[in-house]
C-alpha cells in the first residue's frame, strides 16, 4: 500500500483541477450532444424500428379467419405486449388496392417526364446564362425565384391560370392560359375543371413541377459551368469546333458530375411528389372536382391517405416507396459511374 502511494506523483491543487477537467472532457462532449441525441432517438431512430415493425405486423383473425384487428391496432390495445407474428399482409393489402396502381403510375409518369425536361431546360438556361455578360445577375435572380416560393400557394396560382370560370359548356372566361392558346389559334382546353381529362391534368402538373424544379438545377449547373477551365474552350476554338460540338463534346462531359447530381436528386424528388398536386388540386380529392378515386394520387399521397386510419399499411406503403427510391438511385449511380467523367 505504502509503496503504491509513493509511486503516485504528488499533485498540486491546480494540477488536480486540470486532471479532473481532462477526465470530465468526454462527459462534457456527451452533455453538449444530449439534446441532439434525445430528439434523434425519439424522432429518427425509433421511427425506423417502429415503421418496419408496423409494416410487417400480421392482421389478427378470429377462429373463422375473419379479420378482427389490423396488427397495429391490436398491438396498441395490448399496450405493445403481445407476441405478434411476422407477415407480408400489409404489403399485400397496399399492392392490392386499386389506388396503388394509380399512384404508382402517376408517380413514375411524373418523374420520368419531368426530370428529363427540367434537366435539359436547366442545362440550356445555365449554358446561356454562362455565355452572356450584361443582365446575367438579374436573369439569374429571376430564374431562382420559384425556389423561394410556397409550393401550395403558387400551385393555387397555376390552378387559377388554367381555370375556366362559369359552366364548362359556355364559360364566362376560359382562363388566361386558354386565352393565350386562343391567341395563337388553338382551341381552349378544360384543364382542371370538372370532367377534365387525365392528360389535361397531367400536363398542368408537369408544367408546374418543371417550373418548380428549374431553379435548383440551374443553380447547381451554373455553379459547375463557372468552375470549368476556359482553356478547353480555347483549344476547341483553335481546332475550329462548332458550337454544337463544343456543347456536346466539352460542356456536357465536363458538367457530367453536376448533371448526374441533379438527375439523381430529381428522381428522388420526383418519387416524393405530393405537395405540388395538393397545391393545384387539393388533398380532398387529389383530382379535378367531381372525380372519384383520387386519380392524381402519388405514392407519398398513398402513405398519407392511411396514416391516421391504418398505420401498418401506411408503413408498408412507405417502405415500398423507400425500396423503389433506393433501387432507382442505385441504377442512377451505376449508370452515372459509367457515363460520368470525373
Amino acid at each position, binding site marked *: 500500500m505504502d509503496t503504491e502511494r509513493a509511486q503516485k506523483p504528488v499533485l498540486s491543487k491546480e494540477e488536480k483541477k486540470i486532471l479532473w477537467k481532462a477526465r470530465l472532457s468526454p462527459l462534457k462532449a456527451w452533455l*453538449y450532444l444530449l439534446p441532439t441525441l434525445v430528439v434523434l432517438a425519439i424522432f429518427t431512430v425509433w421511427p425506423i424500428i417502429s415503421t418496419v415493425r408496423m409494416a410487417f405486423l400480421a392482421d389478427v383473425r378470429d377462429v373463422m379467419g375473419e379479420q378482427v384487428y389490423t396488427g397495429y391496432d391490436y398491438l396498441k390495445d395490448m399496450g405493445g405486449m403481445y407476441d405478434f407474428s411476422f407477415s407480408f399482409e400489409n404489403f399485400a393489402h397496399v399492392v392490392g388496392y386499386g389506388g396503388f396502381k394509380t399512384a404508382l403510375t402517376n408517380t413514375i409518369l411524373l418523374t420520368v417526364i419531368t426530370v428529363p425536361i427540367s434537366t435539359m431546360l436547366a442545362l440550356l*438556361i445555365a449554358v446561356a446564362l454562362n455565355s452572356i455578360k450584361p443582365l446575367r445577375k438579374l436573369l439569374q435572380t429571376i430564374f431562382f*425565384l420559384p425556389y423561394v416560393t410556397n409550393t401550395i400557394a403558387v400551385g393555387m*396560382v397555376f390552378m387559377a391560370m388554367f381555370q375556366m370560370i362559369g359552366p364548362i359548356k359556355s364559360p364566362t372566361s376560359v382562363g388566361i392560359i386558354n386565352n393565350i392558346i386562343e391567341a395563337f389559334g388553338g382551341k381552349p382546353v378544360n384543364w382542371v375543371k370538372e370532367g377534365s381529362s387525365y392528360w389535361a391534368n397531367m400536363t398542368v402538373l408537369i408544367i408546374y413541377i418543371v417550373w418548380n424544379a428549374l431553379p435548383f438545377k440551374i443553380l447547381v449547373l451554373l455553379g459547375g459551368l463557372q468552375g470549368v477551365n476556359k482553356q478547353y474552350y480555347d483549344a476547341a476554338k483553335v481546332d475550329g469546333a462548332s458550337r454544337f460540338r463544343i456543347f456536346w463534346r466539352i460542356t456536357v462531359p465536363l458538367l457530367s458530375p453536376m448533371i448526374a447530381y441533379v438527375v439523381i436528386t430529381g428522381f428522388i424528388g420526383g418519387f416524393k411528389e405530393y405537395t405540388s398536386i395538393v397545391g393545384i388540386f387539393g*388533398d380532398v380529392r387529389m383530382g379535378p372536382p367531381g372525380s372519384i378515386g383520387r386519380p392524381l394520387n402519388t405514392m407519398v399521397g398513398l402513405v398519407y391517405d392511411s396514416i391516421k386510419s391504418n398505420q401498418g399499411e401506411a408503413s408498408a406503403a412507405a417502405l415500398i416507396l423507400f425500396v423503389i427510391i433506393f433501387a432507382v438511385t442505385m441504377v442512377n449511380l451505376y449508370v452515372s459511374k459509367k457515363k460520368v467523367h470525373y
Partner: protein
Amino acid sequence: MIAFIVISAVLCAAIVFYGVVVWITERKREVPQDDWMGQAVATKGMRAKDIDAVSKKQTVMKILVQVGLYVFLVFMAIIVLFPFYWMLISSLKSQSEYNASIPTYWPKQFHWENYKYLFVNVAEDGMFIASDFDLKTLFLNTVLVGVVSTLLSLIVTVLAAYAFARLEFKGKNALFAALLATMMLPGELFTITNYVTVSSFGWITDKVGIFTALVVPFLVSVFYIYLLRQNFMQIPNELYLAAKVDGTSDLKYLWKVMIPLSAPTLISITILKMMGAWNSYIWPNLIGGNIFQLVTVGLRSASFQNAAGETLFPIQMAAVVLVTLPLLLVFIFLRKYIMRGVSRSGIKG
C-alpha cells in the same frame, strides 16, 4: 392579348438592343489584346485580309448567337415570372373584371380592398364570408412556430456541431457517420411513427400540444449540424488553445469566437429554417387540424367562396400574394445566404 404580345416584344427588343450595344463596346475593348490565339493563326501564313474576313464572319455569327441567347433567356424569364405577375394583377382586380371573357393585363382600377377583406372578413356586397380564413391568427401562429423552432434548433445545432468539431470523445467518428446515414432515408418513413408518437404524447388535442409537436420533432437537422461542423473545423485550433491558456471556458469560447466567426452559416440556417416553417404543409396539416393552423395549411383549406358558392379568385390571389411576398422579400435582401445553403443541400426549406 395584343397588349401582352406588344409589351413582351418591346421588352425583348430592348434587351436584345442592350445586349448588342454592350457586346459591341465590349468587343472594342477586347480587340487590342489579341492573345496567343491570334498569333497562332497569323503564323500559319494567313494574310491580314483573310484574317479580317474571317473575323468579320465570326463577328456576325457571334452577334447572332448572343441575340439568340438573350431571346431564349428573356422568353424563359417571362414564363418564370408570369405566375407572379398574374397573381399580383389578379389580386387587384374586381370580381367582375377577373371573370370577364376578355382578359385585362393591367387592372382597370386597383381594388386594394381585396386585401382588407382578408383581415376584416366582410365583403363589398356583403356576400364574401372569409370566416374560414383568419390571416392574423395564421401569421401569428406561423411566426411563433418559426421563431421558437429556429432559436431552439440553433442552440441544439451549435452545441452538437461544437462537440463534433472540437471535443474529443470515444466513438465520435462512428456517431457522426451514423447521423449522416439517417439523412439518406426519406422523411415519409419517420412521419408515420412520429404521428403515432406525438398522438400518444397527447400533442394533437390542444394548441400548446400541437405547437410542441410542430417544433420538437424537427429541432435536429443532421444537415445543419454537418454544415456548421465543417465551418467550425476551419477555425484554427490555435485559437482554441490560446483561449484555454487564458483560462476561457468552452462555452465562453464558443460564444465569443466560434459563433461570430461562423455567422454566415448561422444566418443561412436561420433563413432556411424560417422558410421551412413558412412553407411546411404536410406535418402541420396532419397534426394541426383546425385547432392550430399554419399559414400554408390555412391558405389551402380556405374556400374563398361567397354565399352563392362562387370562388372569389381576386381575394384568393390576394391571400396568395400575402403568403408569397414575405419569402420574396427575404430572398431579395438575403439572396447570398439562401443560395449558399441551397447549393449544398438540395433540400427545400
